[in-house]
């Protein structure tokens, strides 16, 4: 067995980025993701990379934009209120077709909200990470090991599809420690013929501005063709005891672990519960979910929010299953026991 390390989710994300060849990190302190900044400020100088503490999350995403425009693997991270500030830069990066990885260690909102784990940025991440017609890749790891692995996947996918990728986790995953075995290195950065400062014979420009509507429409259509390719290839999920389940819990990230514990407890009591866990939120694994839900007939969406993913679940499931919802919000993490009660009530 290769060496295992005990790491916080936040540290795993940071070390994975370093291993992935990211040498440009721009951040701003905010609980509960600050360990990423602390780790990078220590680690980047050791590998000849750049850690820069920006004056704001807005500046941090724009520094990321600048570094990415030169072809560098660049990353920024924050937590919910700070991510809201990054939406400007995210939109410009989408408009400029620039890749990067953005980490969101979610906390309770709206406003300053709280600092405890939350999943209330689902809409922000999957629906409107910025203004305009755009998409962002959204990955939802559920373990510290996955936090690590997903950074590799996210960098590669962001470069392949030339768009920002978000690693959407929460305070629980960011703060907890679990064993991590570093996986095989990710593919090397892809060739970036569009990058500035490459010294190519022809001058290059990167801009998101198109004053002629037809021209902008054309650019967006081409971009959406790329999005739809990402949609068919990237959606991922994991099922746990879903095959013969009569009630299918649907949860992502930290909540999926609570749901998993509830499923195990339900099975011990003889109830046929199962779990469907989207590993990507955009693209959402709708085909896979539809198939699993149709078998179960009953679906219970569990989130640390007032119910945001539930709309995607309803869209995916259609009329093949009844969809219920259970959520805790404001930083309250649902307990397996209360979830078990809901499952028992459904059976």
């Amino acid at each position, binding site marked *: 067995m290769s060496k295992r390390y005990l790491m916080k989710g936040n540290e795993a994300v940071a070390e994975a980025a370093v291993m992935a060849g990211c040498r440009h990190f721009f951040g701003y302190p905010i609980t509960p993701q600050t360990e990423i900044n602390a780790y990078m400020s220590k680690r980047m100088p050791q590998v000849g990379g750049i850690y820069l503490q920006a*004056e704001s999350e807005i*500046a941090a995403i724009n*520094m990321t934009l*600048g570094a990415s*425009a030169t072809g560098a693997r660049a990353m920024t991270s924050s937590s919910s209120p700070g991510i809201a500030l990054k939406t400007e830069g995210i939109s410009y990066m989408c408009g400029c077709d620039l890749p990067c990885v953005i980490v969101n260690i979610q906390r309770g909102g709206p406003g300053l909200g709280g600092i405890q784990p939350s999943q209330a940025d689902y809409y922000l991440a999957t629906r409107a990470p910025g203004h305009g017609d755009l998409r962002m890749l959204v990955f939802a790891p559920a373990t510290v090991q996955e936090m690590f692995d997903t950074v590799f996947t996210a960098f590669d996918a962001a470069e392949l599809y030339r768009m920002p990728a978000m690693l959407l986790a929460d305070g629980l995953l960011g703060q907890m420690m679990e064993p991590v075995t570093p996986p095989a290195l990710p593919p090397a950065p892809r060739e970036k013929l569009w990058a500035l*400062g490459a010294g190519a014979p022809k001058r290059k420009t990167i801009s998101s501005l198109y004053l002629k509507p037809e021209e902008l429409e054309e650019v967006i259509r081409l971009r959406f063709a790329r999005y739809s390719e990402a949609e068919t290839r990237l959606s991922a999920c994991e099922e746990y005891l879903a095959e013969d389940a009569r009630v299918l819990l649907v949860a992502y990230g930290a909540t999926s672990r609570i749901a998993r514990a509830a499923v195990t407890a339900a099975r011990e009591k003889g109830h046929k519960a199962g779990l469907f866990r989207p590993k990507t939120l955009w693209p959402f694994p709708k085909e896979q979910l539809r198939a699993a839900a149709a078998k179960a007939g009953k679906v219970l969406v569990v989130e640390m929010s007032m119910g945001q993913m539930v709309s995607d679940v309803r869209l995916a499931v259609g009329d093949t299953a009844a969809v219920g919802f259970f959520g805790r919000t404001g930083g309250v993490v649902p307990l397996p026991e209360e979830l078990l009660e809901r499952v028992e009530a459904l059976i």
Partner: protein
Amino acid sequence: MIVYEKSKGLTDTPLSYCPGCTHGIIHKLLAEALCGANLLGRAIGVAPVGCSVFAYNFFNCDMLQAPHGRAPAVATGIKRAKPEHIVFTYQGDGDLAAIGTAEIVHAAARGENITVVFVNNTIYGMTGGQMAPTTLPGQVTQTSPYGRDVKTAGYPIRVCEMLATLDGPAYIERVAVDCVKNVKKAGAAIAKALRYQADGKGFSLVEVLSTCPTNWGLTPAESLRRLSGEMAAYFPPGVYKEL
């Protein structure tokens, strides 16, 4: 005999500026400075939001168009990733001194090794002439129709003076493009700023007092007189920092 040639630092794209606007002069000065010091080949420019948003079409080097006010942050990212390149931003007063205040102050405070060309014409041009952070007291604009009232709209920001209080910047100068002599002076200042960057000395900024005949409602000639008069009086040209 060739007496005058267009700078190779500019593309053949026709400039989109209004007649009489001094952006054209400033573009030429920056382009000539890049060519003169043989820096064009390794230059990466950052265009702002505002009248000069299309600067990415005009400068004959790699160019990036930044979100409003964020050019110094974007340039920071570029420079950190490509330290051997010459990275400049070209920003107006609304972009730099209003929405982008945090970014310019902190890029300066970090001594970020970039060059900023800051074009101050005391008004938002592209959106049609609204009050800017540099609009003079009493100046009539679309959003200060009774003249800028400092009691409610506050005072203009003197960017050079403000940034010169910081330890980070290496070179800060304010110039004007109101007459041939001053245009030459402005060109020299921009060339010097780029040289500072090339020598690794740190943050350099040249504020260029500029005109906006269209939104000022003046002829180009009257505009230059306003520039020499009340504008230069409120924003005195000179070197504010030189390490």
